[in-house]
């Protein structure tokens, strides 16, 4: 039965994180000394503090020492965190999500016993996923044969049972801070796509593994991602046979189903960013006086802010719906929910909406909206970033897979219609 009440735990989570953001993150993240330089290295001290509060492991089951947040609750937490700093939220979101997937779902009891204690105890124990580079052609191949492409790693099992990993990926999120990499490599070179991939656990200090420097914020091409990330290179990198997760040639993350809910969580991070910009604009509009009254009382400013409020609410509705749907797959079969890629719709709409919200909010600031010692220009940058980031494009392309592709279920709208699988490059929603 339809019910939008949040649980007391969800409300408490929200309040706790919100307080942490106001009291700890914002004073540092929005300080002019932080805002002005091009390079904005990860605020590791704040990440550590957040870890100590349990925000590195919120999605991990209570059993395993986490807070057992489901997808919806994770979205609530991440929106709040991102209202303080997007990069901190992204880093923690990645670790928390991967921790839940690994320790609650994929590892064997033996593996869990071996890796979980370290992960649970060490506040600086982060996780990264080094998968196969998603096929850049997926969306562009709209209603055509899928084009091949994308870098991937290879893994060979030695006679003694060890695995040898080779290859490199240009960008792996969390790589610079991860202590354990979840690696997906092709173990069966005769197969293509999602088939023949194996999943292996690789400690970051493994011999033969090199993690590159994070991309720079200046130069011919500039850093254009949230969180932290870098290239990873494996050169005859050896891991023991029991580091294999699941079955050989059947990586449990290969088909993307488990990763889908991280899409919703990324959208929640976006939403937090947009809300931060909007909140700042409302605060400013209430104190800035022009034309004989505070500017919030001008129709032109008021309507911009009302637009923002509506967009953010629309985005939140869609994100929460998608998150709840991930937690309750039965709701599609009982026809309560449409058979649509809700997580993708949430991500695509939120990115676009937040981009617009940050711009509208900055406009309320007039010239102050472009000053580098003020937060608005950073919000605008972060909003643009998400909207044209690589992972956004990839996400967007998921809406575009050929209708008969097996990699996603056929989409039936509430009305019983097929979603047209359109590219969603058009900005008109």
């Amino acid at each position: 039965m339809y019910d939008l009440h949040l649980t007391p735990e969800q409300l408490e989570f929200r309040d706790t994180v919100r307080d942490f953001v106001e009291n700890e993150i914002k004073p540092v993240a929005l300080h002019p000394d932080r805002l002005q330089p091009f390079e904005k290295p990860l605020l590791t001290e704040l990440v550590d503090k957040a870890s100590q509060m349990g925000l590195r492991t919120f999605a991990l089951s209570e059993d395993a020492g986490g807070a057992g947040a489901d997808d919806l609750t994770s979205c609530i937490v991440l929106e709040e965190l991102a209202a303080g700093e997007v990069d901190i939220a992204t880093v923690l979101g990645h670790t928390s999500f991967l921790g839940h997937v690994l320790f609650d779902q994929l590892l064997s009891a033996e593996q869990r016993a071996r890796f979980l204690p370290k992960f649970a105890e060490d506040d600086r124990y982060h996780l990264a996923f080094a998968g196969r580079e998603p096929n850049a052609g997926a969306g562009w191949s709209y209603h055509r044969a899928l084009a091949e492409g994308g870098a991937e790693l290879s893994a060979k099992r030695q006679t003694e049972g060890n695995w040898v990993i080779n290859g490199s990926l240009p960008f792996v999120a969390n790589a610079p801070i991860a202590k354990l990499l979840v690696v997906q490599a092709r173990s069966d070179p005769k197969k293509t796509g999602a088939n023949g991939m194996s999943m292996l656990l690789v400690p970051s200090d493994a011999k033969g593994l090199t993690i590159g420097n994070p991309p720079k914020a200046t130069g011919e091409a500039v850093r254009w991602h949230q969180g932290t990330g870098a290239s990873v290179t494996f050169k005859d990198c050896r891991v023991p046979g029991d580091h294999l997760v699941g079955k050989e040639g059947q990586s449990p993350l290969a088909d993307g189903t488990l990763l889908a809910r991280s899409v919703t969580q990324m959208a929640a991070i976006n939403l937090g960013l947009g809300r931060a910009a909007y909140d700042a604009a409302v605060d400013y509009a209430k104190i800035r006086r022009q034309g004989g009254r505070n500017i919030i009382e001008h129709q032109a400013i008021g309507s911009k802010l009302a637009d923002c409020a509506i967009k953010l609410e629309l985005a939140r509705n869609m994100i929460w719906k998608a998150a709840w749907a991930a937690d309750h797959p039965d709701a599609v079969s009982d026809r309560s929910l449409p058979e649509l890629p809700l997580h993708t719709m949430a991500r695509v709409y939120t990115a676009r909406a937040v981009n617009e919200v940050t711009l509208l909010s900055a406009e309320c600031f007039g010239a102050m909206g472009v000053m580098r010692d003020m937060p608005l220009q950073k919000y605008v940058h972060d909003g643009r970033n998400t909207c044209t980031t690589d992972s956004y494009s990839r996400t967007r392309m998921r809406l575009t897979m050929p209708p008969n592709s097996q990699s996603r279920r056929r989409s039936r709208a509430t009305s019983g219609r097929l979603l047209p699988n359109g590219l969603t490059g058009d900005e008109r929603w």
Partner: protein
Amino acid sequence: MEARRFSDEEIRPLSVKRDQIEGGFEPWDWDIIEKGSKLGFRTLAVPKEWGGQGADFVSQAVVMAELARGDSAMSKAFSQNWKWSHLIAAACTEDQKERFLKPFLADHRYVMGRGITEPNSGSDNRLPPEDDPKAGFRLRAERKGDEWILNGEKCFIANGSVGSLFFVDARTNPDVNIKQGGTLFMVPKTTPGFRIGKVFNKRGWRFYQNAELIFEDARVPHANVVGTVGGASATGKGDNTGGDLFGDLELAANALGVCDDAVDLAMQFSRSHKRAGKYLFEHQLIQLKLAEMHALTEALRSYVMRVAWIHDRREPSANAGLVMIYSTDVIQRVTALNMEIHGAEGCLMNARVDKLVRDAMVWTHLAGDNVQRMRTLRKLAGKPVPVVSGD
């Protein structure tokens, strides 16, 4: 064309480099100003009888767009001076021209700016609320013999950190509104009691300088009053047939250059990069975006050139304001489409593509903000309908 060559060969190679230098003042580069000045780009609008190029509006628009194609902020750093050439020609006495125009022409590093905005008065200067006579700038000027004593501060002042001469709006009568109580002064950098404050560190137009001007008992001779005391708004606009002719056209022409650059970048990229085995250019959605970029840019070009031509004929119209508003929407859209077409390559963005978006954002508060839109419409409407300000 000289402007195109200079833009391609001198400006463009510096563009992203200067943009990425940390700080508010630091991206500035006197070398390129001197080089451009030697080619006449600093003094383009000075009348021929004073030794300038005396370029008409159409030529000015073309040069601004060409320079902006190389770097929008550098183009503006040059054309900002033209604005005051117009003002000097229109409103200054012979003595003032002698004292200020001559050194301006002689020194390749002599640039100018105007100070209107203050921390608490931005929109109010442009659209003074009728029910609040105290609104607007507050910088106080009091007469003492042959001098005026100025106290207060201005912010976001163009060329603030590098200018040799500023046109400063001050309140000579604080009890009436700024239309009657405002006076325009010429303040050389060397004025006693006058100094530069903070240099603003901006997201876009990083090369271009905006700074605070601080007046602490600054002493300005009465001979530096432009026009009449209490006549700031009447005399302060230079050639203002139908609006701030030059300033409005300037931003629109600059935007045109940025759009041209964005269109070129997008065309090149989409014809050299493939997705799913086909050039981006061959994908329908990219084609639709490219067609829109072309159409908007050509519409803007048509409008800018029409307005420049109207200006040269001194025909009053509201088109100067309209084309500026229009350029704001177009530059936003075209630079954003360019970024969408480029997308992120891996987790990196082409720095120039990003720069164009950042530069474009300056328009939203400078050129096409709400106040500008309402002011322009007021002009279109003529007198009959009173517009309640600030609403």
